[in-house]
């Protein structure tokens, strides 16, 4: 058994290295400092590994842009305010169709907020906080093991679609230690020789760009990207479900929120074995698992959204449902983790009220 007890940040970093990432450009910010710190220790131990502390998050994302254009598997990590600063660069990379993995260990906002954690960056991540029509794939782990696995996969997704991929953790997932089985080193990396810049020997010169002189060309490019995003929506939706079969109410939560929700459901089941609460946990936030939610609404009409924010994913749930269900919401924005027992209370109140109403 190859289980190690690892910090979430370290698991992300090590999984990236196993996935063939050899370039890391980052900048300190709590609660993800242990990620660049780990990289600064590990990269020099790996053949060809480069760790560089950038002078800012803006510089970091642009170093990532350059490294991606030169063909590298490359990563950067930060936390909320730092990710805001990277928005222009991410928009460029999406426009230039460059792959990279961007880790956001979300903290409390807005502004300086709080260093612990939150889920307040959902909109920014899923709708492109930068300018223009673009999307980034957003993966939402809820354990250290998933932090590792999803980071590992993120590199493949980024290369497959030539698009930035965001791993959306939070201060808790970053700071805890849990047992992890590390993915095996990726032996064969994708061949990118058809688009990267490495000198124009034996071929015409290449340009990596997002600028279009003719108005029409930009429009064509935007539709091209749009079709790619549709393809991603078709192929890459991921989620986990629990007890949907006979549920009378379905909880929708992701990341740390989903863990607490799972604990709350378990608790309620212990107290009342007849309680029927299911769970849908999106593990990709974009593309969002709309279909399973819509499908579920055929038999179940109550959806309980739990977020560690004042409510952002709830929009995607409503968009998925298209009016075909009732959406209830419980939010705890900013740095206070509700105990499963607290959430259980809120959920139970909602649940029993609904059942009572139905009986009437």
């Amino acid at each position: 058994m190859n289980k190690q007890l690892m910090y979430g940040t370290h698991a992300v970093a090590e999984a990236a290295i196993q996935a063939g990432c050899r370039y890391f450009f980052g900048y300190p910010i709590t609660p993800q400092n242990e990620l660049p710190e780990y990289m600064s220790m590990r990269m020099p131990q790996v053949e060809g590994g480069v760790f560089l502390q950038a002078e800012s998050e803006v510089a970091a994302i642009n170093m990532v842009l350059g490294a991606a254009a030169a063909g590298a598997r490359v990563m950067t990590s930060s936390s909320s305010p730092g990710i805001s600063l990277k928005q222009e660069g991410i928009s460029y990379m999406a426009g230039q169709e460059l792959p990279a993995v961007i880790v956001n260990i979300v903290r409390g906002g807005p502004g300086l907020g709080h260093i612990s954690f939150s889920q307040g960056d959902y909109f920014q991540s899923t709708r492109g906080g930068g300018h223009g029509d673009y999307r980034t794939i957003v993966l939402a782990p809820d354990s250290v093991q998933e932090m590792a696995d999803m980071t590992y996969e993120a590199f493949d997704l980024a290369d497959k679609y030539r698009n930035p991929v965001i791993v959306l953790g939070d201060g808790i997932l970053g700071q805890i230690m849990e047992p992890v089985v590390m993915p095996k080193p990726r032996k064969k990396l994708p061949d990118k020789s058809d688009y990267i810049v490495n000198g124009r020997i034996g071929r015409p010169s290449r340009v990596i760009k997002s600028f279009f002189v003719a108005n029409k060309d930009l429009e064509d490019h935007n539709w091209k990207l749009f079709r790619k995003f549709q393809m991603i929506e078709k192929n890459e939706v991921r989620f986990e479900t629990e007890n949907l079969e006979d549920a009378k109410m379905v909880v929708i939560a992701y990341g740390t929120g989903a863990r607490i929700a799972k604990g709350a459901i378990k608790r309620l089941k212990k107290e009342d074995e007849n309680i029927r609460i299911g769970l849908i946990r999106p593990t990709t936030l974009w593309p969002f698992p709309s279909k399973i939610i819509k499908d579920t609404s055929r038999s179940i009409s109550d959806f309980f959204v739990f977020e560690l924010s004042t409510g952002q994913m709830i929009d995607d749930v409503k968009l998925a449902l298209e009016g075909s269900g009732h959406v209830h919401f419980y939010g705890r924005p900013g740095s206070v983790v509700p105990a499963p027992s607290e959430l259980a209370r809120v959920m139970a109140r909602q649940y029993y009220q609904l059942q009572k109403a139905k009986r009437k």
Partner: protein
Amino acid sequence: MLSMGQAIAKAAMMEGKHVTYMPSYGTEVRGGTANCTVTVSDEEIASPIASEPEFVVALNQPSFVRFQSLLVSGGFILYNSSLIQPDSIRSDIEAMGVPVMEMASKLGNAKVANMILLGAFIKVSNLISLDNLLKNLPDILGAGKAKLLKVNEEAIKCGYNYLKE
């Protein structure tokens, strides 16, 4: 404190338990005492933040005061009695002091105080078996500390047996 928590978490992991270790971090601000939360369970662990811990191990007075109040009713608090003189102890919990510093200096190594407490902890908590802990100790300590294996083993046993007496 933190290393002791990690040791518990590692040992539990090696016994195949679900385990989560969560260090405290206050604000982006200096100072304050360090603490950590270890959750050990046979099932998947929901929240890594224990709002009502079952066991508390306190190394100093402020922690003793703060975390005693969080303990679940019927919980257990183990404390470093070399540094802590409990003024008052909740009546619905059990408390036990271990003079780890004195014991450590008897063993000739002040640094093993934590291991003594660890030994005492596994005794009272019954979460991990002593045999497994000792078996896994080399892995838990890591390669760098092979030389200290012996004295750590002794310290753990010493803590374990202290409560036997």
